[in-house]
């Protein structure tokens, strides 16, 4: 296991992603995988504000839909080139997120979650009702496929797969840099205790807002990619069930880690594929599964593995410490929740 951690493990994962289209001969599998990558990107964003900063944002799918609609409306109704619209999808989502985050982050804990649940509903209802802008329940049809350099068009499943994959890799790498930086430590300090963080001189409001903006920026970009990939948009994308789904991905993989949400977001759709006869009813199985996981494996797969490793390291350190008991040795190992993969 040890050899698979860190850089080597990540390189292997990227390689696996690169060869995947050659292993599977099936366009359908590519589409499933690409969709999973897009939601994985959005889940990474949700994980930043929820897993690392401790604020459970229930409006996340609303922001993802916002990014998607920016691309949809600009490309279809205003003939803006895809990439310009795509760049704007993240920016506009963050701009809209600024006042919303400013207001909602003044609330703590449950109040923040409930407030954002309401914000998410408002976003959904606005998308559904503002027909002159969003085409209402009809949705936006005929979004152009992303274009590459020299007139190349990403309209084949394999090309789209690599495009989406590239964004996920960059997104995961940037997220890794964020959470291992001082800024990431700051977010974790806020998650672990508001008061403690504040007494260390951390500006709570500013850092929470920054985390929120980065998080919705990811959601917006994921939405923009979604628009270019699926090329059809309906208000359904803003529905809270998508936020709930992303929460499930995050929780199963391991909340507050980078690998966890990726694992959850890519693994769960494959699990659903095998439970396809359930489709509409998959939550008859997944609902109780979520509850069982929350009760018995609260740190998810990656989190539990890290906790197990930390426990083992601490035991070994104790063994080493016993012969040299003459002077006390500090054996405190990092807890599972505080570390990250």
């Amino acid at each position: 296991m040890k050899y698979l951690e860190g850089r080597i493990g990540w390189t292997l994962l990227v390689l696996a992603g690169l060869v995947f289209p050659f292993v599977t001969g099936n366009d359908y599998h590519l589409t499933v995988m690409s969709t999973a990558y897009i939601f994985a990107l959005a889940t990474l964003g949700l994980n930043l504000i929820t897993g690392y900063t401790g604020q459970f944002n229930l409006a996340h799918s609303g922001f993802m839909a916002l990014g998607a609609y920016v691309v949809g409306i600009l490309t279809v109704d205003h003939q803006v080139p895809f990439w310009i619209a795509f760049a704007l999808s993240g920016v506009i989502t963050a701009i809209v997120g600024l006042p919303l985050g400013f207001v909602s982050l003044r609330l703590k804990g449950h109040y923040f979650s409930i407030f954002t649940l309401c914000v998410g509903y408002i976003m959904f209802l606005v998308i559904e009702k503002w027909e002159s802008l969003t085409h209402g329940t009809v949705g936006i049809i005929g979004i152009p496929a992303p274009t590459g350099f020299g007139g190349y068009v990403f309209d084949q499943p394999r090309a789209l797969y690599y495009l989406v994959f590239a964004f996920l890799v960059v997104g995961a790498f940037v997220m890794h840099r964020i959470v291992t930086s001082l800024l990431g430590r700051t977010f974790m300090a806020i998650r672990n205790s508001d008061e403690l963080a504040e007494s260390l001189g951390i500006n709570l409001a500013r850092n929470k807002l920054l985390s929120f903006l980065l998080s919705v920026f990811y959601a917006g970009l994921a939405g923009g990619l979604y628009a270019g990939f699926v090329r059809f948009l309906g208000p359904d994308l803003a529905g809270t069930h998508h936020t709930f789904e992303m929460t499930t991905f995050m929780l199963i993989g391991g909340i507050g880690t980078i690998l966890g949400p990726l694992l959850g977001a890519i693994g769960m759709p494959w699990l659903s594929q095998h439970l396809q006869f359930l489709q509409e009813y998959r939550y008859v199985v997944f609902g109780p599964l979520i509850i069982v996981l929350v009760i018995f494996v609260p740190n998810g797969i990656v989190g539990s593995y890290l906790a197990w490793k930390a426990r083992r390291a601490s035991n070994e350190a104790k063994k080493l410490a016993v012969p040299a008991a003459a002077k006390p040795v500090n054996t405190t190992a990092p807890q599972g929740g505080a570390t990250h993969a």
Partner: protein
Amino acid sequence: MDFLQQFLQQVLNGLTLGGIYSLVALGLTLVYGILHVPNFAHGAFYMAGAFVSFHLMTRYGVNYWLAMAGSAAVVAVLSTLAERLVFHPLRHHSGLHPMIAAIGMMLFLEATAQLIWGADFQRMQSPYSGIVELGGLTAPVQRLLIIAAAFLMMVVLHLFLKRTVTGSTIIAMAQNRDGASLVGIDANRVAMLTFAIAGALAAIAASLYAPINLVYPAMGNLVITKAFVIIILGGMGSVPGAIVGGLIIGFAESFGAFYISSDYKDIIAFVLLVVILSVRPQGLFTKGVR
């Protein structure tokens, strides 16, 4: 005169909506007071209540009121089970985990309802489909029934909480958990009782409202979100706050739908919340900071 009639009509609608919202919000606020968990599954209990009534009436031809009592009992059991199996094991976890578990339960109940009754919109017949005319004001009997029943339930709940020992144990637990344990109140019993009451209230509200609305698996989502708005406005855990908040939202919606736009009537509650919390992050009726 015409204006006055329209106005009174909206008052009637506001009371109807407000009564329903208050009943749902009361259950939510009681549970929050005891466990400090926002029970996202409460809307699913509401939905289950409507379906059980619907099922009893259409499949077994049970009388409307008996069906309502039956569904209150069924949902009370369901709600108590949820407390035992889900929230009780999570009582030492804070914040995120109980919320996610509640969401898991909500998704489970919705999918199960869809499995049993299908995703279609169902219409529930009420024996009271007549219309009463009072001085030029027309009122469907079902709406008057809703108002009367909802406010009767509130009075009963109030008397139960204030005048009986069992009811006082709930108040005591909500005020101070340790203090309640010190005077010998069984925390488990009170938690189960609270969940049972909350479930029964949701089922009654749903059975009352279903005849003038539709029955479908996702019917609880909007109602529960509004109920959350209400208990935030009224103060989480506050019983009078839930009733007043319910009426405020009910009136805001009926007047907003009529005088502003019926397309956006579902947004009104949320916009109200966003505006109020932007100005007063601590809510309308509470003191101190959150």
